[in-house]
């Protein structure tokens, strides 16, 4: 049991911290949440700066510990989020790196790392949510192309993406998990229609994507035909592993800010409020330690995070919702004012127990894959 870092890791942290202190003041102002072209330019620009400074590949090339340090330091310094680069850097990128051919890696990975191309995810469908493997979007083979027809939903950054990592059904005659393929589809291909979806928070964070006989070259398939489910599991294990490091750090910062606000507005004098904030401090301290535990485990098991991510995600998603509930208790009537800090975050937090696998699905995963309980 050791929580200390190696001299090399500490040197990386110091170098990164110094670089962040130098470059962050010179960043352009953050674009408004509704300005999608502006957001794309901002997020790609940040990735380009990271790339030029030698941090471009930190999300999948570095050791889990170095990745943890990167996410911790950038979050603490208030650096931009991964934003529009999320799917490219943390979903599609790692999948192509693990499962793609040399040619595919050479085509798709460098533009992601250099901040030139944006990816989005076409997994969920209106009739395939928790039961993702029931997806119906069909791909027929026509010579050296697939012809794809169907619809996808909850696709973040679809408006500004160049590529979509797309799950399609290539064989409807076999059991559902065995007839799926993973394709990279250009978002400007004829037949792709994007319809933004407005979230309950008022913004258009994701979209529906309609596909009408979209032609995708067979060469853009990653992995074997009908092996897409296994290829996908590689991606999902990344999502449930290290993807939340920055967010835990952010939550701890928000919690301290809530405590300061409580003191400023007098709510601190209410012992029930203080106890609640103290509990949340215990919660997020423990979640940070669990993150370190998972990262340390990934380090010794060769980098791919395991099902332990489900344990983390279950607890974290609920804790983050409770964080903003506590904020609302501190704010009182101000919690009804969308112009007040944390109010939109409170609305956004309602997605955490649903996105990336609902809590109910995560409990099934924990129950069946970790505890060995029988399937229902």
């Amino acid at each position, binding site marked *: 049991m050791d929580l200390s870092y190696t001299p090399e890791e500490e040197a990386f942290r110091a170098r990164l911290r110094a670089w962040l202190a130098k470059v962050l003041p010179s960043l352009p102002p953050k674009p408004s949440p509704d300005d999608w072209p502006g957001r794309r330019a901002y997020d790609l620009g940040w990735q380009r700066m990271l790339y030029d400074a030698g941090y471009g590949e930190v999300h999948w090339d570095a050791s889990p510990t170095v990745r943890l340090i990167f996410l911790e330091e950038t979050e603490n310094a208030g650096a931009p989020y991964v934003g529009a680069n999320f799917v490219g850097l943390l979903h599609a990128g790692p999948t192509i790196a693990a499962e793609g051919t040399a040619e595919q890696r050479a085509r798709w990975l460098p533009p992601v790392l250099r901040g030139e191309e944006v990816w989005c995810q076409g997994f969920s469908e209106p009739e395939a949510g928790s039961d993702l493997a029931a997806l119906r979007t069909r791909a027929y083979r026509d010579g050296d192309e697939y012809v794809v027809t169907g619809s996808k939903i909850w696709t973040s950054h679809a408006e500004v993406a160049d590529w979509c990592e797309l799950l399609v059904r290539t064989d409807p005659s076999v059991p559902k998990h065995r007839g799926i393929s993973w394709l990279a589809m250009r978002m400007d291909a004829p037949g792709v229609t994007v319809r933004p979806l407005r979230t309950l928070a008022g913004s258009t964070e994701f979209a529906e994507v309609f596909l009408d006989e979209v032609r995708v070259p067979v060469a853009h398939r990653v992995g074997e035909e009908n092996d897409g489910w296994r290829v996908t599991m590689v991606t999902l294990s990344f999502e449930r592993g290290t993807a939340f490091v920055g967010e835990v750090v952010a939550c701890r910062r928000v919690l301290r800010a809530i*405590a300061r606000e409580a003191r400023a507005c007098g709510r601190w004098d209410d012992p029930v409020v203080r106890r609640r904030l103290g509990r949340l401090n215990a919660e997020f301290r423990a979640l940070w330690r669990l993150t370190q*535990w998972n990262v340390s*485990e990934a380090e010794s098991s060769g980098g791919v995070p395991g099902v332990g991510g489900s344990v983390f995600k279950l607890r974290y998603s609920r804790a983050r919702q409770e964080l903003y509930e506590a904020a609302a208790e501190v704010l009182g009537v101000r919690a009804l004012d969308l112009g007040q800090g944390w109010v939109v975050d409170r609305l956004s937090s309602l997605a955490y127990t649903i996105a990336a696998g609902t809590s109910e699905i995560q*409990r099934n995963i924990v129950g069946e894959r970790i505890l*060995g309980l029988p399937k229902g």
Partner: protein
Amino acid sequence: MRFQLTEDQRALRDGVRGLLTRRFGAEALRAAVEQPGLDRKLWRELGAAGFFSLRLPEVEGGVGLGLPEAVLVFEEAGRALLPGPLVATHLAAGDVPGAADGEAVVTAVGGGGLVEWLDAADVVRGDATGAVPMRSVDPLTPLWRVPPHSVVEPDPVFLLLTAAEQLGTAGRTCEAAVQHARTRGQFGRPIGAFQAVKHLCAELLVRVEVARAAVYAAAVTADPVDIAAARLLADEAAVRGARDCLQVYGGMGFTWEADVHLGLKRAWVRAERGGLHTESEKLLAGELLIEAG
């Protein structure tokens, strides 16, 4: 950063688990319930195995290990539901003659003025004058309480090792619930196939793993705020875990015969032994403002 257990730590944990399985397994636990009393022979064996002298320097006859190792050992004690004032005697090693080698049984005035095993102890640390016996809810922990003016704040290491015991009990409880859910059949299949039961089990594990990360980290840092957090989460894992395990067991869980109630009652005792949860929460809340500057 290598947060996982080292080879030596795993060997230590496995060794203690082996010893306790041999010396205080399921049958011994039931026998102790039917015939309460501190087993002095077992106490000396624990002493000989280094249970109490673990953290004493080798020049003083100890094992020379640290808090992480002590936490692993006490986690095993909690898993076995081993009775006796283990934490108090461990903390007395080096101060009270005979404590280190298991010749003396040492108890202490704990949080809320709770004193465990006062009749069996050779030495009491703290002021137990005027201690009043209670009809203990836990058949394996005789209890007294002292007047309010004798109550002192528990030491952080006392809280940490108690949290380690809670963690061990929570792990045992989770395994028992899962085992029952796998084997108990209703409607023609194991009840663990039903999501309502499966999800109770999943939450049991989540609480254990969150508590484990907090307790192990607190053992490394020895920071009182980390210990306060570990204590809250370990108490939650042990107490709520036992409640949920009881639910999974159904009617059997409500019987004297099933072991479930033993875990719950011990978890209740340990949660009180650490003093009021409010105190830990206040410490954690106050730290939010300190760190904010």
